[in-house]
């Protein structure tokens, strides 16, 4: 028998899910659901939109309005949905490849528009679904099936990218710091604007094996030991930051939201009619 939370928000007939043993995707998915439950939102006023990838399969397990779209285009579909029904809470579930390789252009422009969508990137540093090719977030030097001698690209810092592009809520957490992730999803949904949450997760099957990162547990221990909270991170020297990454609420700001601006234009024409 599943927990109350799972019974309430998952399509339990589709469980157990397809993800590999120890894959972090289930941890992030449960965290999103827990955040929605904590906010007490009406299930019918939520629309979860995903692209293509292992992570993007999450939408199929969730009992909200859900749309499983095409690779890289979740934000394009989500933009249309939000404009048609501005009252919906639109949540995008996407992978690092989906969001920042094929879908990178949609990401920067959704952020630039500050459209009220909460995007959660399941960053496992690889293309899991297609067998472990390197992605824009594969660290330099790490291996993928398409980088057998090590990746020569510089990886994106997705939070810095989203911030620079105009997102008004930007945060990062990991599958180890689950309570932090839940809180961030809550705050991201509450933010009236484009919210970008990077969930650092694991693909033990491909990225893990290819890079000799050990089992699922070892990969989580790595996330536990190298994540530094933003307040502490700011106080570290360059050398002390080596190999570490920052978690927490990285950026918040306030500026006009896209669907409200759009409505303002419509209203300006309906005056006096």
């Amino acid at each position, binding site marked *: 028998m599943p927990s109350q939370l*799972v019974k309430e928000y998952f399509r339990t007939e589709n469980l*157990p899910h397809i993800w590999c043993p120890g894959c972090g995707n289930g941890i992030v998915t449960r965290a999103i659901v827990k955040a929605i439950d904590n906010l007490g939102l009406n299930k019918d006023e939520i629309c979860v939109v995903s692209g293509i990838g292992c992570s993007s399969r999450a939408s199929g397990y969730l009992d909200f309005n859900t749309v499983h779209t095409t690779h890289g285009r979740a934000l394009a579909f989500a933009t249309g949905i939000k404009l048609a029904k501005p009252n919906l809470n639109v949540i995008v579930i996407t992978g690092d490849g989906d969001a920042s390789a094929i879908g990178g252009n949609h990401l920067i422009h959704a952020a630039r528009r500050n459209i009220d969508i909460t995007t959660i990137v399941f960053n496992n540093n690889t293309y899991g679904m297609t067998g472990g090719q390197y992605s824009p977030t594969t660290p330099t030097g790490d291996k993928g099936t398409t980088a057998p001698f090590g990746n020569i690209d510089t990886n994106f810092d997705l939070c810095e990218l989203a911030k620079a592009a105009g997102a008004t809520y930007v945060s990062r957490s990991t599958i180890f710091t689950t309570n932090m992730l839940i809180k961030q999803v809550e705050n991201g949904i509450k933010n009236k604007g484009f919210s970008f949450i990077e969930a650092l997760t694991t693909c033990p099957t491909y990225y893990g094996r290819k890079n000799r990162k050990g089992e699922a547990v070892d990969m989580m221990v790595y996330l536990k030991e190298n994540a530094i909270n933003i307040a502490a991170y700011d106080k570290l020297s360059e050398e002390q930051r080596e190999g570490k990454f920052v978690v927490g609420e990285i950026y918040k700001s306030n500026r006009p939201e896209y669907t409200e601006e759009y409505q303002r234009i419509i209203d300006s024409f309906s005056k006096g009619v």
Partner: protein
Amino acid sequence: MSTKTQASLIVEKNWCKGCGICVAFCPKNVLEIKDGKVNIKDLESCIECGQCELRCPDFAIYLGGK
């Protein structure tokens, strides 16, 4: 006398994939992997902190309630 029951910590064995995440991060060493699945070996020590539930990727272990 402890009032702890199996109903406070519930395992859905059919969903467990034996990844060992709950075992590794349980602060009280309550759990183990047995025959490829999670097993409650020391229920008495469980402090009902819920960390296993938070991090189980397969929703296969949880505390009673939500």
